[in-house]
């Protein structure tokens, strides 16, 4: 009688779980009856490795069953030759363990009642390849993948320090996603960690599909175009950031890792900067600042010179410009807008299409449209040059989020320049910088180290001085 009742309760738990999964077909269960002990195995078929279940759970248990040894449920972890055996106290978490690919083992013997979760995850993983949108020249070529465990492993491999801490948080009402707050103990300030924790805990979302979603949920300036967190797929970049005392946020299911706090200075750096000798590396840094400026200001500056302040162009250039613009039907602002729009469309088309076709489209678009537009006199050759140079400059910006932000700002500047020339541009720059000054990324001023001025930290800003190598200054 007693035994039957126990089976019934055991099957009750089982039924509950089955009900929770709506009797989904991939939820398998298997019951083994030992002497006075009922063992029920539950697992989700496709994400659990059947071979592992067979080898590490079933065969040891069956061997014991044949040997007729008396065992109690608490002995089970010792029997299974796998390290990852957890005792589940809270039965409501069973379904989550199942979804992570664990096998849930319910062991019952008279009054004893134990639930174990055994890691048997089987997942299709890609290898940690070099991130496509963040190529490096000579740095490590591995990149984060979609599995958070592997990402943690990658980071550990790059940062062999006992101070490296992972702090797991579970977020999401409908779908639970695990997020890991990662930092170096002693490097990252306590206030920063607390702020990150607080913001993560405040998130009220139904589900988080990607780090990009998490980023937007963590941000405090939703109207800003500038990213408050840097996203990267490079373990080295994350390691660098952690060493500087920043905090990284890993999201399960996303190869993108977020870094906080972010400054404008940080967005313009690449890990490559640290792998080369400091003089060329400094020049490259200067170049990336310069390209960022160009990609924002050049079209506006060109418009304001060509249609407002003709006196400021060198005479010979002014003469040849007026020749090239002869017969162009549009005002230069409209001309610039047409070209900018064309470039943006080409860029989007290039991204959306499969790679081989994408490059063809952009080449055809650039050459054919550009060439014919010039020769038919719709746009002037100088404008084509200016706009395409701007586009190239915005490709040269190391961070894609920043590049997107600057593209948006560019239109604002262009617009202001078309209204009030250089003066309008200057006012627009005032507004943008006021916004940047106001912006805080996790309480860190966005324009640091330029505002507030930390001249000592300029040595790793638009330049990268020699003594920066192998030594971190922190944020």
């Amino acid at each position, binding site marked *: 009688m007693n035994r039957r009742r126990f089976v019934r309760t055991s099957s009750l738990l089982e039924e509950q779980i089955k009900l929770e999964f709506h009797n989904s077909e991939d939820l398998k269960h298997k019951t083994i009856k030992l002497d006075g002990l009922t063992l029920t195995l539950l697992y989700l078929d496709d994400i659990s490795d059947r071979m592992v279940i067979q080898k590490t759970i079933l065969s040891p248990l069956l061997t014991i069953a044949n040997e007729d040894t008396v065992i109690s449920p608490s002995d089970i972890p010792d029997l299974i030759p796998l390290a990852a055996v957890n005792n589940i106290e809270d039965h409501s978490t069973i379904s989550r363990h199942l979804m992570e690919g664990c096998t849930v083992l319910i062991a019952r013997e008279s009054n004893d009642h134990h639930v174990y979760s055994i890691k048997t995850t089987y997942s299709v993983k890609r290898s940690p390849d070099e991130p496509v949108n963040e190529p490096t020249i000579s740095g490590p070529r591995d990149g984060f993948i979609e599995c958070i465990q592997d990402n943690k492993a990658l980071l550990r491999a790059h940062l062999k320090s006992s101070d490296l801490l992972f702090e797991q948080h579970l977020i999401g009402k409908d779908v639970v996603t695990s997020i890991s707050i990662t930092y170096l103990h002693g490097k990252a300030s306590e206030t920063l960690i607390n702020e990150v924790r607080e913001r993560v805990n405040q998130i009220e979302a139904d589900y988080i599909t990607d780090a990009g979603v998490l980023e937007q949920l963590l941000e405090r300036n939703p109207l800003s175009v500038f990213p408050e967190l840097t996203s990267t797929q490079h373990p080295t970049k994350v390691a660098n950031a952690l060493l500087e005392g920043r905090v990284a946020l890993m999201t399960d299911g996303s190869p993108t890792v977020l870094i906080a706090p972010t400054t404008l200075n940080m967005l313009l750096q690449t890990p490559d900067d640290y792998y080369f000798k400091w003089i060329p590396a400094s020049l490259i840094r200067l170049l990336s600042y310069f390209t960022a400026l160009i990609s924002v200001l050049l079209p506006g500056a060109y418009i304001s010179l060509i249609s*407002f*302040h003709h*006196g*400021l*162009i*060198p*005479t*010979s250039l002014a003469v040849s410009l007026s020749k090239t613009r002869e017969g162009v039907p549009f005002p230069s602002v409209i001309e610039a807008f047409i070209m900018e729009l064309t470039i943006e469309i080409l860029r989007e088309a290039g991204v959306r299409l499969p790679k081989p076709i994408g490059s063809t489209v952009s080449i055809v678009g650039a050459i054919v449209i550009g060439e014919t537009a010039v020769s038919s006199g719709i746009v002037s050759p100088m404008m084509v040059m200016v706009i395409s140079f701007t586009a190239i400059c915005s490709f040269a910006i190391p961070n894609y989020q920043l590049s997107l932000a600057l593209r948006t700002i560019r239109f604002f500047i262009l617009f202001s320049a078309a209204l*009030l*020339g*250089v*003066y*309008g541009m*200057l*006012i627009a720059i*005032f*507004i943008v*910088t*006021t916004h940047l*000054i*106001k912006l805080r990324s996790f309480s860190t*001023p966005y*324009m640091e180290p*330029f*505002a*507030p*001025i930390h001249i000592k930290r300029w040595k790793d800003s638009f330049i990268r001085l020699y003594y920066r190598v192998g030594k971190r200054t922190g944020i």
Partner: protein
Amino acid sequence: MQTNQHSLPIIIFFISTIIGVGIVTLPRETATIVGQPNMWISVILGAFVAFINALFIFMLMKKYPLKTVYDIAPELVGKWIGKLLNLIFVCYTIAISAFIIRTMAEIVNYYLLDKTPKFVVLLVLVLSCMYLVSTGLPNILLFLQLYFPIILLMFLLLTLLSIKNIEPTHLRPILYLDGSDLLKGVNSTFFSFVGYELLMVLSGEHRLTRWKPVTFILGISIGSVCVIYVLFFILNIGVLSIEELKVITFPTIEMAKAIEFQGFFFERFELLFLFGWIITIFTTLTAYYYSAMLGVCKTVNCKKTFFMNALIGLLILMLSLLPSGITELFSYGTYLNYLSYVALIAIPLLLFLFSFKKGAVK
């Protein structure tokens, strides 16, 4: 080290506030009064007078840590007279803001936008300034810090580019002194150093009570502005000559226009100067705008800063559109100087005297 970290933003605040219209119009004003090649000595004397005045203001503010002039005036001379004094000071800051942005609008109209109405030129400036002021004092200080190196760099570049055009004969004789003329010039050069009086406003958020750091801050700020002014005086005299300075409306810009490198990528450089200069005007405007807003808010105990912000912006804009032309604008400048005397000397002196009286009562 600690004091340096703390005082750098304040030094930058003062320098950015002080450099304003003076750099463009002062050479002409001084040339008309002094009219000798060594008139830059007047600038140094003017800086010295300004420094003394600044120290005097500090003597007053030292007694009341973390309080602005708006707080102490009602305390010292009674509620209603104190409020009146506050309003006079607010009027002064509004008038000076209106004056500088109107001068800037004139220059923008002359050299950049010929046909654009001044109203539009001023409106966009005041609006963008309103945005900056609404972010609060800490962010204003950050903004100034961001632009400070850029301003310095532009002035340095302009100096380097102008050196070629200097004719040393214009600058001589140096040692032939006519003391009385130089002293007369101090009256006008002194006013180009106004800006330090905002110490009375800044003291509200920064603990400025010790003699040594504050003397250092004021000395460095007024001193470096003095160096920049003297440099520009020398450039102006060297490139344009004294007699020419008297007749050119905006000599420094004409000096920048005289730079021309034939066949170089950029031939003309006045834009460089105008850029740097409009930035300095913007920073000066921000500082005074903020002071005015703070003053009004404290006087009428208003918490809705956005409303006050818009009101002050409107007042500045309207006042700046008042003069009909440049001659009238410059004549308003002399009235402004009287108001400056009141704000810089009379109000602090009055409060200083009352502070003794109150002290005795306590």
